[in-house]
């Protein structure tokens, strides 16, 4: 067992922290307020190699371990949850399934541009009537001999309208339930594919979530990703990777709120002394740090399993559950400790609390995480 970060992991943290503090922090409040996608900083992050870290060098990736990648998402999220999820969705839910299930032609066609960040990726599973219950998806792809005909819609899609390449789940045989789902690669600009609106969200407002509409979209036959009827597996295994990223996003938000609170407590004086001198508050900070450190250990352990190619589904669910609940716990306390200042937008704390909430919901709710974990206990 080894709890010491590698030199690479330390340097990745140093690099991304510097980048996040210098480039991302100054715009974090503004992209939240205006719900604006941060094209400039995402392009800068791409230049540093942050959009293709755990992917092979032959496609232009960094060939890094998963802990290094997760540290990058964590450090971005420490100052801005939107940037964290932008990187994570692109990597885990678009690059990863294409790398894992794609044919050689699909990998050669899509990965170099995705991994370099020249193009951005997204993933579409959720529909108005199908979230956690994936078998209920109504988007259909019909085999028309020389092409697939795609009809239906997706909602709450991170990067919808922004991304260039989409991994989309569609029913190819309704009678087979989840075994009738197949996954497809859909590209921005294909006739019949539109993004009519973006959601007005509570948090992570710089990462736009859109509705995707497919009306008689003709997909080339070669755009089927993975085997016919194996789309559910593509989605679930991608979400296993995604949960590491969401765990990292949650952990980063928690760490960011914690660090802001430490600074605030040292400077804010009440009753003639600074807040850190009040033991009741200091003890709560000790509790927060413990929860953050415990969550981090669980997350890095799950990443280590993934890097080694060992089963990591349950560990990823445990890590995501722990990190997202820690994020909610810490940010709520952080707002409380900031008092009135925590509730206004002059400070980043209220944004962090709003950003934290989604981590308990997307890429599998906390309840789904408990289904996975308890299923493993009583298997």
């Amino acid at each position, binding site marked *: 067992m080894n709890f010491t970060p*590698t*030199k*690479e992991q330390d*340097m*990745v943290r*140093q*690099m991304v922290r*510097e*980048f996040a503090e210098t480039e991302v922090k100054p715009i974090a409040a503004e992209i939240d307020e205006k719900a604006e996608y941060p094209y400039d900083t995402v392009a800068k992050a791409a*230049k*540093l*190699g*942050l959009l293709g*870290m755990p992917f092979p060098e032959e496609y232009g990736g*960094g*060939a*890094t371990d998963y802990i*290094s990648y997760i540290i*990058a998402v964590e450090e971005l999220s420490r100052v801005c949850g939107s940037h964290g999820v932008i990187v994570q969705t692109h990597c885990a839910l678009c690059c990863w399934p294409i790398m894992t299930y794609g044919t050689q032609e699909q990998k050669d066609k899509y990965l170099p541009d995705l991994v370099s960040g020249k193009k951005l990726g997204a993933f579409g599973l959720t529909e108005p009537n199908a979230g956690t219950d994936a078998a209920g998806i109504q988007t259909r792809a019909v085999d028309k001999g020389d092409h697939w005909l795609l009809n239906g819609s997706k909602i709450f899609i991170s990067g919808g309208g922004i991304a260039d390449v989409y991994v989309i789940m569609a029913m190819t045989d309704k009678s087979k339930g989840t075994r009738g789902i197949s996954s497809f690669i859909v590209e921005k600009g294909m006739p019949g594919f539109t993004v009519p609106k973006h959601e007005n969200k509570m948090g992570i407002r710089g990462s736009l979530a859109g509705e995707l509409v497919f009306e008689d979209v003709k997909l080339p036959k070669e755009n089927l990703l993975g085997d016919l009827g194996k789309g559910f597996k593509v989605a679930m295994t991608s979400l296993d990777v995604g949960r590491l990223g969401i765990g990292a996003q949650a952990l980063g938000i928690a760490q960011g709120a914690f660090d802001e609170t430490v600074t605030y407590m040292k400077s804010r004086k009440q009753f003639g002394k600074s807040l850190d001198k009040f033991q009741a508050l200091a003890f709560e900070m000790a509790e927060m740090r413990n929860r953050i450190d415990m969550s981090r250990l669980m997350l890095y352990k799950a990443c280590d399993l993934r890097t080694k190619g060992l089963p990591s589904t349950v560990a990823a669910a445990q890590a995501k559950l722990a990190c997202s609940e820690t994020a909610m716990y810490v940010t709520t306390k952080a707002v409380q400790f900031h008092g009135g200042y925590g509730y206004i937008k002059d400070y980043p704390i209220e944004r962090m609390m709003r950003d934290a909430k989604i981590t308990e919901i997307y890429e599998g709710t906390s309840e789904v995480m408990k289904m996975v974990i308890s299923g493993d206990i009583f298997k």
Partner: protein
Amino acid sequence: MKIIVCAKQVPDTTEIRINPETGTLIRDGVPSILNPDDSNALEEALRIKDEYPDTHVTVISMGPPQAKEMLMECMAKGADECILISDRAVGGSDTWATSNAIAAAVRKVGAFDLIFAGRQAIDGDTAQVGPQIAEKLGLPQVTYVKEMELVDCEKAVMVKRALEDGYQEIKVELPCMLTAIKDLNKPRYMSVKGIFKACQPDAPIRTWSAADIEVDLGTVGLKASPTNVYKSFTPKPKDPGVFVEGETPSEQVENLLSELKKKHIV
């Protein structure tokens, strides 16, 4: 084109604390970084490399073995090769002795077109090592460089040298030494690929001893250093002073005069 960059690892603080009893720097708990001006020096070399891809950038530093970490950062930003002069024989060197060692290492590296150094390091603040290296290598030098451009088919540089009230424009033939200030550029970040390359066990980061650089041992190290630190101390903070207040300017003047009269100054 072959470029050499001189860099130093320094404690990450602009407010260095000094142990009042020993008069030495307190380094505990202070992380070490690439000296800020040196990071501008490296950036300028890397910008030239961006423009002329066959450029080779070598970073030279002198310091204890842990200075290798700073050189790994230089490599992660894009340097091709790094050399650390590390040897007990050169320990305790002042600026004169340090520049002897670095000049020797530069000679050992061989032919080059440009040497960049930072204006000064944030720990010693002497701004002497760069110019001294240039003198010892017989090179023309321009200090306080805020802008530069290669001209005459890369045989010379046009340089803007910052002065307190403006700048000088100077044309210098290569090879030469330029010392960088922070206005010169915005240093880049490390890249993911750069980091993983710098961490490879066979990364070209070499440690050279005094013997390797073939330097006269009588010109390096503490004993050969003509500078002796007599005393280091933290100056006492100045008295905050008194603000003379008043609703209107004339009231303020009146109040000031009465204060001065009280002290029999006027």
